[in-house]
């Protein structure tokens, strides 16, 4: 009997990390992705909002997309006559591994860091003040696509809802901050884009 192998393209099977960046959320001057001409790994814009990398993660970045549905049934048919969306959960989750105030600010939902630079006879000092309310951020992701170019995702508005249990051990584990970013933007406002070919001469 002849063997059967479905058609496939090995080069489309991908692994690899993505870079995650956060920017302040602004309704009037929202954060934007880099220009299309910026190559993979290039500099992200500092205007109108500054993008900041979230830093190291323990096990990379995970996307969670869950569409809740309601099946509309009739007595005469065993399968639904329609399936309507009731809710969509779109989350980006990771465990941050850089033990800094910048990480804590993100993990704990928001805040501000005031740094006084060291001067003659005066120590340098950082003070983190957490927010009572959740800060809203924009979240940008960048990875390599199947064509070897950039793939970028922009979620215009997210909040960080964390359930952090930060463990401090002598040598058994890292100090880690598990974070979960929940998209607040309408799902149609999330931008997915990728480069497919280099510009022609």
């Amino acid at each position, binding site marked *: 009997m002849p063997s059967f192998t479905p058609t496939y393209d090995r080069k489309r099977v991908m692994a690899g990390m993505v870079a995650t960046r956060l920017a302040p959320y602004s309704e009037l001057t929202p954060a934007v992705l880099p220009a299309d001409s910026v190559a993979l790994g290039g500099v992200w814009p500092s205007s109108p909002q500054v993008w900041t990398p979230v830093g190291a993660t323990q096990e990379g970045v995970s996307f969670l997309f869950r569409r809740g549905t309601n099946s509309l049934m009739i007595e005469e048919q065993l399968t639904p006559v329609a399936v309507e969306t009731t809710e969509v959960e779109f989350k980006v989750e990771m465990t941050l591994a850089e033990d800094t105030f910048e990480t804590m600010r993100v993990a704990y939902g928001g805040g501000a860091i*005031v740094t006084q630079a060291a001067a003659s006879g005066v120590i340098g000092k950082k003070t983190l003040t957490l927010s009572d309310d959740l800060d809203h951020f924009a979240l940008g992701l960048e990875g390599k696509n199947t064509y070897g170019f950039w793939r970028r995702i922009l979620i215009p508005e997210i909040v960080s809802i964390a359930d952090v249990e930060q463990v401090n051990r002598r040598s058994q584990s890292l100090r880690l901050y598990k974070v979960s970013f929940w998209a607040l933007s309408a799902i149609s406002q999330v931008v997915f884009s990728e480069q497919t070919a280099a510009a022609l001469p």
Partner: protein
Amino acid sequence: MASTGKVVLKTAFSDVFRVGGLEITSEGVELDRKTADSVLEAARNNHVQLHEVEAAPTKTEGSGS
């Protein structure tokens, strides 16, 4: 666009960086190149990431539409 020789330094989010008599915020502070370099060095020494953007040129007489 003509360079103004000035740059704007910004902090990320709503952070504040105080050095000498200066206070750098997320709104951005316009500085000359020499001052900006010393502020950036102080930021590095204090583990603060500042962002630099070129200052917008000021309108001069006869320019514009």
